[in-house]
């Protein structure tokens, strides 16, 4: 039980970090494009 508590899921965390960074880059790019195209009112 103690071994399970100390288990560090490094692979899962690494995949998660890559996934989150990818989302941030994609979302940020689209958001900057939106801002660059200007207002609509």
């Amino acid at each position: 039980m103690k071994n399970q508590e100390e288990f560090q899921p490094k692979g899962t965390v690494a995949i998660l970090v890559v996934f989150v960074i990818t989302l941030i880059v994609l979302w940020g790019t689209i958001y900057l494009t939106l801002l660059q195209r200007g207002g609509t009112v």
Partner: protein
Amino acid sequence: MSTTSLHVHPYEKRWIIFSIVLLIVFTTAVAIAAFALGIQVPSPEQRVDPRTVAVDPNSPWSNPGLREIAPGRYEAYILAQTWQFQPREIRVPVGSRVTFYVTSKDVQHTFKIQDTNINMQIVPGQVSKLTVTFKKPGTYPFICSEYCGIGHAGMFGQIIVTP
């Protein structure tokens, strides 16, 4: 009387904090875009009768096209129908601020101008309105991106922004 505390794993705790931060970031980003920079989604401007909107002499869509309302400011009345926009071409000088009033006389369409934030659902009986300032000269194609029948692929036009 005993008290119990909720056990939250450190990874779960970090993920909850990250999710809350994300919500704050997204809400702030949307608020800045909407209120500080004026990027709005179209709202129904007015109601019209799709059966008469193109023929009623009091309707601006009986003679669709561009009207200059002030120097550098225009109103564009666009009529969408299967399978064309009227007019198909608009010419304005660079720096023009154009407000689009678009409606449909038959089925549902969309009006999307490339390289701008104009992308409106065009519903029969409803007028959709958005404004854009054309800051760069060039050709801005506009298309219907809602499948509206066999001739859908030919439903397009262009805005020519002259230097």
